Structures are given as C-alpha cells and as structure tokens.
C-alpha cells in the first residue's frame, strides 16, 4: 500500500513525519490494519530526514540505557547507515503506508475529521493525527520547477570530499552556505548565489574567509550578488551538466553546473504547529506544546510525540509512537516506563500501586500541581527518590539505580560550601536548613535552588530528618521544566530571591511586609559587556548579584581600570547608599549575569530592620574600598584583572593559569594530563591568551553556570560537590557541549586504549601525549575534570617542575594579583 496517490483519501490515523517516532507509530498502526487504516506522510523523498542528515558513518547511541524499547520497529546502537537501512527494510516488511514528498501546508478540523492539505494540492482526511515532525525544521526550498532533492539539487552536504573537479553552485548567504562553498572550492569550481548584496548574516570568521576567497584569483570561487534563481534545467543524464538560470542585476545569466546545493535556512516547525491550533506553554523559543498524559494537544484528536513534544531521544520517541496508537484506539496500556516508576517507589514505607503514588505526590506539592502529568512523570523517573530511615537492616541492603535511595536519618543531603547539582522537594517528613540560623521545612516545600540558579556553592546545609522522603531532581531536568512551565519558573525564582535576601540582610520584618517587598523586586539580565550603572550617576538602587560576575571600573587619572569583581550573593553599588548618594565607580557585567534590583527605600527598609547587620554591611564596604583603591592604584594589577575578566575567568570556579616567568615550556603538564586521562591531554599549553606574565592555556574553567551542561541529552555532564564539572560514560558524542563552550575547552575524540608504561617512557622516550584524534569509532566529548577522580588534585599542577602552573578560583584572584609581592 505504499505511495498511494489520489486526490482525497481518508484514514483513521495520519502520522506526519517518518522519524523514529513516526515510523514506530505507523508500525503499531499497521499491526491493527485489519480495523484501522493509517498513512504516514513524509515531506521528503526518504525516511528520517534528521538522522539521514547526520554525518556519514556517525555512531548513533541508544540512550537512556535503562529504558526498555517497546515498538514494532527495532533499534540498537549502530552507525547511521545501519539504522536507516534496518528501518527501511522493516517498514517495507511491515507494509507501512508511507507517502513521500508529502509536505503539509495546513490542517483544518471539521467536526468529523481533519483535512490535511499537502503542497501538491491533494487533501488527506484523517480522524486522528499524530505529529512527529521533530524540531529540525524543513529546509527552505528554492521554489522553482524541478526543485526537490535529487542528484542535481541538494539541501545538505554531508561529505565535501565526494566532489572533485565539478562545477557546483551554492545558493545561500548564511554560515552553512559559506562553509559548504569554502569546503568545496579547493577541488571544484564553485559559484555562490546571494540574493542580497552582502553576507550580512554570517559569523565573522566565515565572512572574512568567504570575502578573502572571492577576492583571491587563485581560488576557484566566484559570487553573484543580488541574484535569484529563475529556473532549473535538469541534466539529461547522470553526471551531465544541468543548467541554473539566474536573474541578475545585469539580466539573465545561465550557469552550467553538475550540482546545486541550496542552504536557505530552515522553517522552524513552531509556526506551522501553531497554525494547526496547538497551544505552546509560553512565548520562549524553547517552549513545548501543551500535552496531556496521552500526548494529546489542546486540539482533540491531534497528538504530538517525539522531539517536538520535548523528548529528543530516539528510544523514548519510539516508545511514544507505540503508546500513542494504543491511546488513540482506546486501549488501556501501562506505560513502557511503568517498571521504572515501580522501581523508584520500591522501598517506600507503604504498599500502593506506583501510579497511585505518582498521583498522590503530585497533589502533595503545590508546585507539582501546576505541572502536566507527563512532565511530572518524567521528573519522577529522572530524579532520585530519597528516603531516610533509622532501620539499619534496611540501610544495609544494596541499591541500584532506579530504586529508592535509602539514607540514614539525620544526615546531610548537602553541606554549606558544596556545589549543588540537584534540586530537592520534600514530600514527607522534615528537612532542616542550617546556615547562621536553622529553618525547619515542611512537606511540600523545596530547597537547594540557590546552587541551581546561581552556580554558586550552597549558602547553608540541609539535613534530612527521620522517615522523611525527598525527591532529588538533576539540574538539567529542573531547568528544562522551568523553561517550559512559567508558573513553576516564577515559583522557584521567588523562593530563590526570598532566600537570597534573607541570607544577605537577615531582615526582621513582619512576614506580610517582607513578602510584599520581595514580590515587588525585579531582576535585570545583562549580557557580557553591558553596563549596569555609570560612575557619577545618582544612586537609585543597589543590586544583588543572582548569577554571573560584575566588574567594578574606576577611573585612574583618565584611564578606566577594573578594581573589583562581584559574584553571586554579593551586593553591587551599596557605597552609593551610604553617605554621598552617587556611584563611585561603573559596574559592567564581565559575563552574562543576572542581578536583583533593590530600590533605595527598600534597601533601607531591609537594613534598618536588623541594625546588627548594618555593621557587617559597612564592614564589607570598607573592605571593598581598601581593595579597590589598592588595585586601581597599581596599573599593572588592574590591567591583569581586566585581562583575566576579559578571558572569562569571572565565571570560572577552577581555572588554570600559568605564570610566564616561571614556565620553561617543558609540556610536562600536558603529558601529566594525558597520562592520567587515557592518553588524551585535556589541556593545550601551546595556545591560549597571554598578557604580561599571565598565560591562560586552553583548559576547562569549570564555569559557575556550565555552558556545556545546557544541552546534554543524556545528562552525562555533572558537577560534583567541590564544583568540578566532568563528563561521564553516558556521553553519546553528540557534540552539543563542544559547540556551546565559549572557551573551546571540549574536544570530540577517541581515547588511547593502551598507554606506554613508565619505564618505556623513561628508557626509550615513548610518548603518550596526543592532541590528534583518530576518526574511527565512537567519538566522545573529552575535557578537563580537575582530576576529581584521582588522588592528589590536578595532575597538571603537581607535574609542573617550576611551579608555574596553578589552578585558581576567582575568589583568590585578588590575592593572586599581588603575585610579585
């Protein structure tokens, strides 16, 4: 029943998108084909476009390992080619009804069914729709006759090495078009067609490259500006020349070429999906569509599964494909992750069905009531359920992942000064938060949010009481939830602010007044380099740093010098609150930061409610003034500070620095790193910025808010209690972290299996340092982990014969600056 063409067809279920989610759904629907008809609509000429566009021979992994696959289609870790081939043969074997080249223009709902209009004008009717279109978007097409993927016209370039001695036309002016053109022009004659008269959208590096290449007569790259495609003439035979007819400012021009590569950007699916009537959670770019526990959107009969619904992993998507068909057909099934849920609750002190416990917990916590059931379910499965008990026999039994974690009663969940990667919610029992004072928390409250939001160590310690139950949720899951649920985001943020105010001011105000004050506070976000306030401006407000790093800039005889840096939990501009209400310096964000704005009057309300605190605050100010004037007075010191902050040390928690006057360039630091890290150095001493006596080599800084952790699909990147950020075995080598890191501290590569032993290195000079990586096999993300897994601390520092290498925390920066004294 493949490739059915007709002007109007009617089906029970229409599945849109032939990625893993769509294929799995179609396969399950095909299982029921005796009483249910289905069609799978795919916009392109082949299956699974996103995976199809992966690089050749890319190794695709099957995370999460603990999840079982429940689908008619199979899936195991393997190369891109193996997986696509398997799915293609299975879809033929299972007689999936797939219609290719069926791009969706619109969906209209009538009382009985949906009418799906395709780009070729046909209409497909369906009672139910499963949207599995993923998040990659559809590449924009050229828009003339004969357009569409073929040997002549492509929308991606997987391997430039496939082309040599050809004439190739690249259409587009963005980064992808430029990168493709640059890669091809070494071996081919390349034309690049730009519909504007400049490459305005490109990254600076790309822009320089392409302009250089265009102007260089020895490079076979020419560009046509203000030019669009009028028509395409396909080649007569494979390998022959086709024609591209162009509209240029000087009339029509024909280029004969072997291939056309169109990189015109992608149309993100959100607008399309909203045009179907689907509501998204909020206006943020990362927002997800609102779905119920059965994947149904607010449009009855329209279901969303896979990456579009917020589940980017292949196995999850395939399970959802299976489940959604069962839901549509009204079959009661237990979720594929039911055993996992059971496991999570397995050692709790009551006997109840796992689904019942899930429902109960959702009701217990005010914040959870505001989540969708699907999101809450994922939260529970990805979190750790912790129960404290005094029962020693129970404690001595071993636990595995996905079972309730048992801890002794009255122990620390975290201690003050530790870095936190978890967000905690108290379900039952009690937890005590102890800093300068102790607060008892009740069931339904959450804690641990300050380390989550500021990337700073905990301000207090948390002790779990007796027979208490806590949900410990990893950072990534929590952040994802906050991004997709505005109410939860605000709730957690409010608590974060309240606790921050409390720790800094210890205000003794009546509860209602304090609440009102906190409710009225606003936050301000700053990009790196943005000014918070200017020197000599009137001091209207004081700022409390929520996250990031703010530089204080003084004027030293006409020169601007950085004299201090303020990080999370510290006040900025409080000098203007005391005495002369003018800011004595300018405040500029060193890295992306967020501050709480406290108006003058509110500041005084907070401060005067606790007179004892005034002394502490004033003491802080004196200390800051002393430090600032010393640094500002020494041009060298402030220059060094400025250099360090410019290089991003402001957001580091553990950065490597090399003192140039001691470094003999022996590279023992690199060798030590490689030796202790499977033969691959995570440090590169030969690159990195130098200013005067300080060299910042290329190595991970363990940022306060790790850029790498943002998009890790398997949550393989973790921060331990001492703050070091490391990547564990769950890494699938997707490269998101390497792309996100602004310091190029992560490399994708392979480790060395067998390293040279000590004596062969000593006697025969065998080497085991490598920066080079082989291209075979599964690449993983490799970076510095501050040697958290070995004894003694960072190997690079211990192996430096002259003591030139050190690792610093920015809090030590100021004392470090006085290096020569």
């Amino acid at each position: 029943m493949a490739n059915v063409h007709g002007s109007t067809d009617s089906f029970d279920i229409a599945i849109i998108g032939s990625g893993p989610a769509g294929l799995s759904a179609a396969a399950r629907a095909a299982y029921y084909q005796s009483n249910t008809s289905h069609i799978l609509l795919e916009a392109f000429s082949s299956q699974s476009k996103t995976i199809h566009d992966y690089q050749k021979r890319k190794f695709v992994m099957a995370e999460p390992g603990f999840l079982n696959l429940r689908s008619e289609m199979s899936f195991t870790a393997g190369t891109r080619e193996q997986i696509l081939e398997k799915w293609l043969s299975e879809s033929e074997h299972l007689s999936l009804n797939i219609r290719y080249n069926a791009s969706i223009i619109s969906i209209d709902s009538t009382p009985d069914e949906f009418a799906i209009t395709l780009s070729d004008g046909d209409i497909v009717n369906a009672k139910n729709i499963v949207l599995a279109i993923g998040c990659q978007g559809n590449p924009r097409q050229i828009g003339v006759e004969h357009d569409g993927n073929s040997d002549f016209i492509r929308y991606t370039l997987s391997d430039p090495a496939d082309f040599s001695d050809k004439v190739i036309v690249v259409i587009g002016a963005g980064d992808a078009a430029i990168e493709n053109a640059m890669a091809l022009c070494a071996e081919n004659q390349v034309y690049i067609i730009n519909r504007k008269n400049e490459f305005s959208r490109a990254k600076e590096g790309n822009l320089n490259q392409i302009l250089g290449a265009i102007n260089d007569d020895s490079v076979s790259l020419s560009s046509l500006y203000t030019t669009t495609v009028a028509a395409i003439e396909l080649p007569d035979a494979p390998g022959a020349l086709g024609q591209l007819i162009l509209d240029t400012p000087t009339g029509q021009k024909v280029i004969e070429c072997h291939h056309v590569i169109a990189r015109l950007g992608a149309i993100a699916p959100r607008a399309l999906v909203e045009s179907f009537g689907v509501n998204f959670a909020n206006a943020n770019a990362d927002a997800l569509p609102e779905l119920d526990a059965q994947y149904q959107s607010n449009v009855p009969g329209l279901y969303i599964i896979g990456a579009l619904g917020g589940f980017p992993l292949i196995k999850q998507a395939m399970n959802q494909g299976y489940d959604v068909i069962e839901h549509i057909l009204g079959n009661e099934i237990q979720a594929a992750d039911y055993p996992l849920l059971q496991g999570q609750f397995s050692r709790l002190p009551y006997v109840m069905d796992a689904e019942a416990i899930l429902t109960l917990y959702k009701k217990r916590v005010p914040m959870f009531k505001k989540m969708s059931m699907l999101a809450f379910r994922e939260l529970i499965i990805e979190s750790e359920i912790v129960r404290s008990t005094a029962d020693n026999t129970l404690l001595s039994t071993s636990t595995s992942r996905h079972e309730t974690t048992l801890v002794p009663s009255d122990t620390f969940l975290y201690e003050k000064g530790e870095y936190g990667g978890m967000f905690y919610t108290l379900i039952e029992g009690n937890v005590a938060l102890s800093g300068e004072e102790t607060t008892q928390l009740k069931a339904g409250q959450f804690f641990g949010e300050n380390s989550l939001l500021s990337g700073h160590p905990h301000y207090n310690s948390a002790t779990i009481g007796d027979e208490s139950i806590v949900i410990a949720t990893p950072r990534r899951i929590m952040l994802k939830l906050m991004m997709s649920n505005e109410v939860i985001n605000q709730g957690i943020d409010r608590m974060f602010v309240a606790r921050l105010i409390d720790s800094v001011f210890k205000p003794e105000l009546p509860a209602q007044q304090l609440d009102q004050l906190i409710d009225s506070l606003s936050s301000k976000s700053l990009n790196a380099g943005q000014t918070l306030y200017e020197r000599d401006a009137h001091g209207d407000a004081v700022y409390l740093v929520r996250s990031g790093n703010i530089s204080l800039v003084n004027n030293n005889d006409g020169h601007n010098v950085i004299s201090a840096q303020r990080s999370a939990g510290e006040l900025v501009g409080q000098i203007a609150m005391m005495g002369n209400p003018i800011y004595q310096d300018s405040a500029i964000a060193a890295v992306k930061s967020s501050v709480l704005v406290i108006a003058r009057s509110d500041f005084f309300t907070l401060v005067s409610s606790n007179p004892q605190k005034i002394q502490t605050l004033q003491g802080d100010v004196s200390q800051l003034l002393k430090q600032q004037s010393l640094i500002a007075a020494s041009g060298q010191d402030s220059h060094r500070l400025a250099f360090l902050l410019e290089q991003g040390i402001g957001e580091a928690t553990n950065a490597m620095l090399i003192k140039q006057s001691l470094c003999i360039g022996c590279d023992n630091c690199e060798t030590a790193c490689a030796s202790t890290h499977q033969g691959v150095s995570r440090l590169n001493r030969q690159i990195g910025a130098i200013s005067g006596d300080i060299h910042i080599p290329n190595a991970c800084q363990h940022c306060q808010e790790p850029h790498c952790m943002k998009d890790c699909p398997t949550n393989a990147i973790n921060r331990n209690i001492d703050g070091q950020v490391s990547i564990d075995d769950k890494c699938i080598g997707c490269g998101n972290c390497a792309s996100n890191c602004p310091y190029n501290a992560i490399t994708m590569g392979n480790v060395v299996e067998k390293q040279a032993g000590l004596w062969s290195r000593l006697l025969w000079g065998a080497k085991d340092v490598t920066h080079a990586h082989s291209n075979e096999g599964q690449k993983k993300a490799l970076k510095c982990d501050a040697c958290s897994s070995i004894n003694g601390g960072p190997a690079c520092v211990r192996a430096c014969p002259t003591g030139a290498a050190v690792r610093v925390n920015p809090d030590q920066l100021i004392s470090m600056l006085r290096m020569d004294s």
Partner: protein
Amino acid sequence: MQVNILQFSKRRYLKLSLVLLGICMTLYLSQTGVDQPPNGGTWQGYVLGSLGAFVIGLLAWQGVRKRSYHSTLGTLQGWTSMHVYLGFLLPVIVVLHTNGQVGFNVHTVAFCLMFVVILSGFYGMYLMLVMPRLSQQNLANEQVVDLRLALSALDESLITLASQGQQSLGELVNSAILLTETKQSFLNRLLARDTAKVQIDSQLADNKNQQTMINYLATQIPDSVKQKEVNILHQLLTGFSKRQILLHTLRKDTQYNIIKKLWLTIHIPFTVSLIVALIGHVVSVFFYW
C-alpha cells in the same frame, strides 16, 4: 603567590641542605687522629660516602618522579627544589668524603662524571630561572603557532603584491621568500644564524635580516615614477620589515628551545654513566680493598 624553585616552601630545602652541610662538616672534622688522614675508609668516610650515594640516587630518581603522573608524593616543584639544593650539597659531601684524593682509577672516574653532571646541572638551573623571561620578552604575548601562521600569511601577501608589479620585482621577491631557508642545520639553529639569501640578476646574494631586500626597496622608491609602482614598493617595504622581526623572533625561539633541551643531553647520559661508575666504585671498594 607563585614562587620559583629556589624559594619553594620558604626555602625549605635550602634549610635542609644547610643542616646536612653542618652534619657533614662535623663528621669530616671529627676525623682527628694521627693514624690516618681523613679519607673515605674511616667510619666517617663511610657515612659520608653512603650519604653521597643516597643523595645521588635521590637526585637521579627525579627522572622517575617527573614521569610518575599519578604519584602524590609531594609535587614535582617540591622535588625539583630539593633536586637543586641537594645538587649544590652533593659536591661538598663527596669532596669531604674523598678528602681530595684523586688518581687514575674508577673512583676518580666516578668523581669526574659527577662533576660533569653537577656543572651541567648548574647550567640547567640557570636556564630554568632565566629562560622564561627571555622567551617571554622575545615572544611578547604571542604564541609561536600564531607567529608561524602570520609569517605564512605575510609571505603569501608579499608574493601576490609583487606579482602586480614588474616581472623582475616579482622574481626578486619570490626568491627572497623561497631562499629564506627556514629548514636549518642543527648548528645554525643553535646559533640562531640567519642564512637567508636572495637572487639578484641571476646571482645569489646574502639577505641576512632581509636587509638586502629592505635596502633595495628603500632605494627604489625615490627612483620610481608611477604611483602604482611606488605604492607596491612601499607596501613591500613594510612587509619585509615585518618579516625581519617575525623571522628574528622565530629564530630566537627555536634557539631557546634547542638550548633548553641541549643541556639535558649532557646531564642525563652523564648521570647514567655516573651511576654505573658509582656501582663500580662501591663494588671495588668492598671487594677489592
């Protein structure tokens, strides 16, 4: 906050060496008595000799410790500090042990080898303290990798520029760049010799420091009439001056790198020979006295 190996840990190893020095002096001076002069065969001599042998072993162990990246036995900086101070102490111990007795025998061979090791060690220590600053001044906040890239880019631009002028100019510039001779013999690299040449009128001329090219360009400019030609010559002059600096910087850097490694080619093999001779010395003393 960061100190060098001599100042390490408040000069802990200097203090240790001074204490040991005191002990050794006391031992040596306690060799009073008329039956024999101070020598390696008295009990004090044996103690001094054993101490000397132990110190030699400990100093040699530096090579092993340097490569034991998992070791938490102190830090390498601490070991290097100890190495340097004990290295100062060792000749004193050994001279006190021998009381200056030398002859044509394996004992003196060991003695001499030890001095070669120690003297090369002094030089090495001097290099470690002085080289970083020399290197820093030479490179001036640049990385060598970036300088090499800059040189390649500069050369390409000079060739392109010259090709826009007269043919003879193009050939001249091409030859100056091709004959820069960046691949040098070991001696030339060690002495940072500039053997650049240039081909003028089919004759090979010296282009040390790119000076010949610079002089040529500087004299051509006032002679030229056409504006375009003058522009090209001017840009070439700027380019070749930059080239002079870049090449000089890279040559110096190469020189420093060679020197940093060269002293070790004396220090290490002689250490190994010393240990062999030392074993010979100890064995012969105990079995052949």
